[in-house]
Structure formats: structure tokens, C-alpha cells
């Protein structure tokens, strides 16, 4: 128990935790959106994130961008990578919905079938990158850790009250929060967003009111996928790595964050993600890093004992979304 270390550097630990949690929160949005509309836990979502990180790697390779590249190349490569990762992740999410879930929905399959299909899709995507692509294209595909070039060097931007904020931390936290605000505005104030809320609240009535349910479901997968794509971009900026199974742990944590905040609730995903990140870093500091998962899940269980629907409750369909 290292209380002094925690107290002395509380500020920087909090910033570290928020950075970590911001990425959880962005990924958590995908779980929460799909759950809100379909009551389905889309376990393939972690691989939607993984595809995003590989896309970033691919774009960097195409631009031949490395740490030594000029400013122009760096800006171009990161912008293209961001767009490509968003599109690739959204596309993957959409493909999973069209290929795997929609045929099941047409046949009115029971929820358990959806769940096992989701796990199956997740494994298919993992093995595509871990094994199949390697057979066709060779390395870097495979089971090894892939290092992504560091395009933006970590620099301390400013110090507030003894807490140094780096450029990467700022980009990650700011980027994640911006995406969430945009998504929240979209769901609450746009026509399409109204459709999403309508289907989440009552699919049958929504259909009677002329909402195209299939289109809303596709939209939800695309939105969740796009968020995962942005998360992938931020993740690669922060950690500079990817791997075929990189999504697994992030996926589990993001799902936890979604449940913690109240699954189906967009703002809940933000609260849950940030809280989880901070709790993990605090516990790593108090005990050691191999305790962070223990602490994270103890907190989850404790919160669910008192608030079984999560901190903000399940409410995508309700007006406060």
C-alpha cells in the first residue's frame, strides 16, 4: 500500500487514468449503442477496434511515415489514418451486422444465438489477423506484437499545479470527449438520432411511425464502429502498438465501463470509462499493476450491488439519453 505515492502525485495519476479511460469510453459507446437498440452485447466490437489499429498501421506504411518524417507527412498520414481507421472500423461493424446478425434477426433467433454469433465473429476477425492473413501476406500479420511508428513525439505541453500534461494526453482526452459530445448531440437532436431513440424505446411503435428499423440498426453499428475507429487512432498515438488480439482486453474493459455507467446510456459510457481508467491507475499505484484488473472488477461489483443498472442507469430510449 503506497498511499504517499498516490497522494503526492494524485494529479498526474488522475490525468493518466483519464487518458486510459477516455479510450475505454469511446469503445464503450459501441457496446452501449448496440445494446440500447438491439439488447445485444456485440462481443465482436473489440475486434472492430482492432481492425482500426491495423488500419492506422497500414496507412502509416503506405505513406512511409516514421518518427523521422517531416511535419507535412506526419499531418497528412495522421489525418488519413484517422479517416481510414474510422471508415474501416465502421465498415467492419456494418459487415458484422449485415453478414451475421441480420440473417438471424430475419429468422427471429433467440438472444442466446446472437450472443454466440457475436463471440464467433470476434474469433473469426482475431484469427483473420492472427493467422489467415499471415498465410497470404506474411508478416507483420500474425501473433506477434506490431510496433507502430511514433509520428508524434510525447512532449510536456504545460504544467498545472505540478501536473505535467503531455500533448498526447491532451489529444486523447480532448479527442475522445469531442467525439462523445458530437455523438450525444447527434442522437439527441438530429432526425436520425430521433429514430435511434425511438427504436430503442419501442421498436414496434417506431416501425408504425415510419422509422425504418433496419436502417436504424445499421446506423447504430456504423456509429459505434466509427467511435471505435477514433479510439483506435488515439490508442495507437498513445501506445504505438497493435496486435491481433489487442481488442480483447480493451473490449472487456470497455464493456465493463459501459455496464458501470449504465449500459444503453451514452453519457454513462463516458462516466464509466473515465472512472474505470482512473480506478485502474490508482490501484496500480496503491498496490501494483497486476492488481488493476482485480480492483476494476471489485469496483464494478460494488457499484452494481447498489445500482444494478449502473451509475447513470439504462436509458438510451429516454429523452435524457
Amino acid at each position, binding site marked *: 500500500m*503506497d498511499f504517499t*505515492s498516490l497522494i*503526492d*502525485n494524485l494529479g*498526474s*495519476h488522475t490525468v*493518466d*487514468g483519464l*487518458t*486510459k479511460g477516455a479510450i475505454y469510453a469511446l469503445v464503450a459507446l459501441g457496446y452501449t449503442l448496440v445494446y440500447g437498440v438491439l439488447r445485444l452485447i456485440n462481443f465482436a466490437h473489440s475486434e472492430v477496434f482492432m481492425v482500426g489499429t491495423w488500419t492506422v498501421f497500414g496507412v502509416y506504411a503506405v505513406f512511409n511515415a516514421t*518518427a523521422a518524417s517531416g511535419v507535412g507527412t506526419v499531418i497528412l498520414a495522421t489525418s488519413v489514418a484517422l479517416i481510414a481507421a474510422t471508415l474501416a472500423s465502421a465498415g467492419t461493424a456494418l459487415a458484422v451486422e449485415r453478414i451475421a446478425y441480420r440473417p438471424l434477426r430475419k429468422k427471429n433467433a433467440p438472444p442466446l444465438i446472437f450472443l454466440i454469433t457475436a463471440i464467433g465473429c470476434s474469433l473469426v476477425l482475431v484469427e483473420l489477423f492472427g493467422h489467415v492473413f499471415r498465410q497470404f501476406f506474411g508478416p507483420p500479420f*500474425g*501473433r*506477434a*506484437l506490431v*510496433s507502430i*511508428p*511514433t509520428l508524434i*513525439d*510525447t512532449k*510536456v505541453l504545460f504544467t498545472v499545479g505540478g501536473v505535467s500534461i*503531455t500533448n498526447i494526453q491532451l489529444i486523447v482526452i480532448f479527442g475522445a470527449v469531442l467525439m462523445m459530445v458530437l455523438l450525444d448531440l447527434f442522437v439527441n437532436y438530429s432526425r436520425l438520432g430521433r429514430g435511434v431513440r425511438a427504436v430503442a424505446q419501442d421498436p414496434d411503435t417506431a416501425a408504425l411511425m415510419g422509422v425504418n428499423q433496419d436502417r436504424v440498426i445499421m446506423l447504430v453499428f456504423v456509429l459505434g464502429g466509427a467511435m471505435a475507429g477514433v479510439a483506435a487512432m488515439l490508442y495507437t498515438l498513445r*501506445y*504505438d*502498438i497493435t*496486435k491481433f488480439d*489487442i481488442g480483447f*482486453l480493451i473490449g472487456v474493459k470497455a464493456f465493463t465501463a459501459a455496464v458501470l455507467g449504465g449500459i444503453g446510456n451514452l453519457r454513462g459510457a463516458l462516466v464509466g470509462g473515465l472512472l474505470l481508467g482512473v480506478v*485502474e*491507475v490508482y490501484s*496500480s*499505484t496503491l498496490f*501494483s*499493476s*497486476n492488481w*488493476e*484488473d482485480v480492483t476494476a472488477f471489485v469496483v464494478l461489483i460494488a457499484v452494481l450491488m447498489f445500482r444494478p443498472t449502473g451509475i447513470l442507469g439504462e436509458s438510451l430510449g429516454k429523452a435524457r439519453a
Partner: protein
Amino acid sequence: MYSLDQQEVIVLRRSTRFGFSAVALALAVSASACGTTDENGGGDDGDCAATIGIMGALSGSNASIVIPSVNGAKMALTEWSAENEDCDIKLQEFDTEGDPAKATPAATQMATNEDFLGVIGGAFSGETRATKGIFDDAGLTMISQSATATDLTLEDPASVFHRVIGYDDVQGVAIANYLREVLQAKKIFVVDDSTAYGEPLANTVKTELGDLVADSDKTQEGQTDFAAVVSKVEAAAPDAVFYAGYAAEAGPFLKQLRDAGVEEPFVGGDGLYGADFPKAAGAASEGAIVTCPCLPAEEAGGTFAADYEAEYGEAPGAYAAEGYDAMNIFLAAFADGARDREAVEKFVDAYEGQGLTKTYKFDEKGDVAEENVVIWAYKVTDGALVADQEVPK
């Protein structure tokens, strides 16, 4: 040696429970019966056949610590087979990804297939610990090229287990010496990855360093965010950081450490030995030190390093010479006429000889003598591990 007549062989064949080839048994028995010790393995009628299994992480983030030893073993077999054409020795690879859960079925497969007369491996300590009971029950001899956890021999020895390298207690002492004497560090931060390999190694180093340990921390496998560890290191302001673990975590850890502005020397154990570590850490790994109880191949003498490079197009990496040596010990057993597991085990136990990297003679627990163990420090230079100096034990 014993000898059986035809009648007994038939009886044996009927009573055998394992369903292995009776012909192979008969041949093996007849070969043993000859009691030949000549160099060509008494293989006058093509009876010299066996399969050696080699298991370890052949794919995944830590494969670069294992693949060179597999290549080394292959080279030994190719060279030997060219001179012993009447012998049919096969080397079969088992990819465990370094995961004990994946190693167990592979071990069972080898143990239950009587064609297997020896195993090179396991490459990592965790998988070796998980499987050595299986091999022990089957009487299948293991020679590990790189499993260095101390307890594998000292605390929980298995009669079939041998290794051609020193164990972590010896390595730990050497690492402590390196930190203290070569780096002249007065405050050292020790991190381990909580695995069967990392934790005991870090503990030995900590015990050895005593008061010089500024602070320590633990990480876990699969971790990518090391913010908490990094801030602990920053707070402790050490002269050097020692990491006991594997490349998949050490890479991101070192990167984040350097990003945070910690520029003190970084020392890792043999878990980081291999091309994966500089790759995973990128430019941050420049100047990092990796210790390994393995001899640099260019020091091994002879033409090994050149032959290896000619065959595989790259300089011999981690444990290549050790894999070569392990295979040669098995091959010597077949040359000596060993045709079943019992005979192989007996031969390896009594083996004495000079390999590429050291003089081999296994003690009753399966270790080579401590004075024959060498520990080297390698430095990451331009993204590759370059032999730096031998470390005092």
C-alpha cells in the same frame, strides 16, 4: 543390455498396451540387443529411426527467443544426417506460443506417441513447469535450451528434465553484479511481470542487491499501459531500471518510460533476448542491456555462426547454439545405439562432452555445472542485440 528372443517379442507385442508399432519395438529391441556403441549407431539395417519433438513459442510476440534454437537444432540434425544416412531422425515442431495451456496437449501428444524418443524444450519456464510431469510419467527425456527458472531443477526436479543453460539464480546474481559493478548503480528500480519466469528472477536480483533496490513494482502479461509504473519509477529517481519479463510488455514499458523522460540505463533478463524486444520498443530500446546465459554465437568458435547465417540468412539469434547443442546430445544418444526412451534417458544422464557453448555434464537434477555456465550482456545497438561483455557470476 538385455536381449529377447523372437518368442518373447511376440509376447511383448500382444501384451503391449500402448498400441505402438510392434515392428518398431522389435527393431529397437534387436538394436539394443546388439549393444553396439560404434559411431554409426549400429544402423546397419536401417533400424535407426526416431522423432525428436521441439516445443516452444514459434509464433507470437516472444517467438524470436525460440525460433533460432529450433533453427540451431535443425542445423545439427542436417549436419548429422549427412554423415549418418542410414538413420532416420525427424524433428517435429510444436508451437505452444509460450502458453502453458497450449503446451500441455502438445506434451501429451509427444508422450503418448512412442516414436518420440526425446524432447527439446520447453523453451519457457512456465510451459516447462506445466509439462514436465507429463514427460516424466512417460519417461521421455527433455533437454531444455532456454527454460531458466530455478525451481525447475532445484526445488522440483524431474528425472527426465535437463537443461543446457544456467538457471535464474545464477543469472540473477550476474545481473546484480552487472548493475552494481558495471553500471555502478546505487539506486535500482526492479520490475517484474508476475510470471513464473519474471517473478523469481526479480526476487533473486532484489535479494542480491539488498539496500540498492530503490523500489519495485509488478506488471502483468498483456499489459499495455504502464503509466502507474512509470510514475513510480519517476518518483524513485533510480540510477538504473531492471525488468524481468518478456518482450511483449517490455517494449511498450520502455517506450513509455523514455517518453516520460526517464533516461537511466534499462537492463532486462534473457526474456528480452531476441529480435522482438528492439522491434517492440523501437528507438527507445537503443542502449538497453539484455543479459542472457547464452554464449554469443560468434564466440562459439568453429564455423557455427557462419554456417547459420548461410542457412537462414541472418546472424544466429537467441539460444541458436544451445538448440544446436541440445540436438547433438540426442543425436549422440542415437549414435550410441539408444533406441528407446529408457536408453536415451540413461545416455543423457551420463553424457559428458564438449558442446559449442560449454562443457556438458548434467548433475542429478539436470543442471550443467555452475562453473561452465556463461552469462553475457548484450547491448541494443542500431536496433539489434550486440554482444557487449561477459558478466561476472
